[in-house]
């Protein structure tokens, strides 16, 4: 009986046809990304996984990224990036994204980049706008700019529903993620409120300083003007 089963198994093994359907394409095909630049695209309808150094990436349908001399640049589409150590990457309108033992959601098209903090320490830099720290549930949008570079605003906290619409098709454990994010939202809101308070205080102080400086300048101008008038009168004996 065992021999019979073995025979059947061997027979089936010979009749098996293995078809490989490409899910992710590379351009150029034989590119390693270390000594050259290569583009990677998810051409399937489903989310695909891709590993790069100490990162686990989930690429949404049609997502495109570029690896150039060991550096990662997220170009278009949706991404879920998980960093197992410290990772660096960039995007079209974000110059530098640094993630330390954490994960983030990223969505991009040729006009706009959107970055959402999920976990860990995330810092990103937008040229002419400075550095931003992204806490869990914080979302920031950077838009294509004009002559003054990219356009961006302060990051803001988004709701569970908004997070769900972004993550549900990218990760398998989106439910747990949303639950854990839900718990952290309060802390993020407090931190963001503190940052906003500091910014507003700084603006108020700046305004106060400006008013004070202008007042001093006005007084100095008045004094100088009075001194000159006196000098003129004295010189021309106008009394």
């Amino acid at each position, binding site marked *: 009986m065992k021999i019979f089963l073995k025979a059947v198994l061997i027979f089936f093994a010979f009749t098996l046809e293995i078809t490989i359907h490409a899910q992710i394409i590379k351009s150029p095909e034989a590119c390693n990304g270390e000594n050259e630049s290569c*583009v990677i695209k998810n*051409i399937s309808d489903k989310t695909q996984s891709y590993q790069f150094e100490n990162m686990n990436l989930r690429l949404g349908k049609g997502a*495109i990224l570029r690896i150039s001399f060991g550096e990662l640049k997220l170009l*278009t589409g949706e991404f879920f990036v998980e960093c197992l150590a410290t990772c660096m990457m960039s995007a*079209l309108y974000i110059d530098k994204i640094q993630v330390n033992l954490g994960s983030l959601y990223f969505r991009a098209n040729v006009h706009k980049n959107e970055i959402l903090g999920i976990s860990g320490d995330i810092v990103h830099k937008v040229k002419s706008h400075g550095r931003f720290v992204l806490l869990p549930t914080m979302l920031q949008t950077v838009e*294509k700019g004009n002559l003054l570079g990219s356009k961006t605003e302060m990051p803001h906290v988004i709701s569970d529903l908004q997070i769900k619409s972004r993550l549900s098709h990218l990760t398998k454990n989106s439910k747990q993620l949303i639950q854990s994010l839900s718990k952290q939202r309060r802390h993020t809101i407090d931190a963001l409120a503190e940052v906003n308070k500091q910014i507003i205080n700084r603006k108020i102080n700046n305004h106060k300083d400006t008013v004070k400086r202008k007042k001093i300048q006005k007084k100095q101008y008045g004094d100088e003007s009075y001194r000159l008038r006196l000098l003129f009168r004295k010189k021309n004996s106008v009394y």
Partner: protein
Amino acid sequence: MLKYVFHIGAIMFSLIFMLCMNGLFLAHFSDTTSYEKTIANLSLENQRNLLEIEMQEIEMQEFKQEVADIIPEYSNAPKDYSGRQLASVLGGYVNPPIDESLSKILLRRAKSLYNEKDFVKAKKALKKYITKYPHSTFVPESYLMLLNIEFKNKNYEQTMKYIDKLVSSYPDNEITAYGLLVLGEIMERQERIEDASVLYKTIINSFEIKQVQRKARKELKNIGLDDL
């Protein structure tokens, strides 16, 4: 009991064997697998072409972004000519690289038709390419393929027209030299040996391409006028 089990096993095995053989037979003779492979390959090629077009747009945006980053340092409101020229790349909707990319795809298709010796379709595709992209750098190459098709069809008059176009529009191009070699061959076929000899000598003197010179010398030797 063991005997029955063995019999049932044997019958099942034969059934499975027959089913598999039937499957293999159908798969082999219906030729569906080869079509499936062709479709998969074409779809992959299509995806690659799409990626190429998408990348052209992304790279254009990257370039615009780089310019946008530089300009504020240069001047927030560029007033001089060079500043305005630099700033002008930030606006506009026309994307020439995409057009260039599309032209490459069209040419690639024409080339593959030419290589597959489907000359009727290749001729049509090449003519379309030349009409649509008359300023492309690949026009001489397209003319060469067209004249080769006409030469193979023994339509010498049309071949000479294409060679004339190459000589008048791209006199210094390497491809023109190859076109002239074809002209020499036509002259030989028309028994205009002396004309052919003069032409080969002109090719040797005008084009410093070793492969072309070697071919011209060989032809001169064949017609017995290799007094160079």
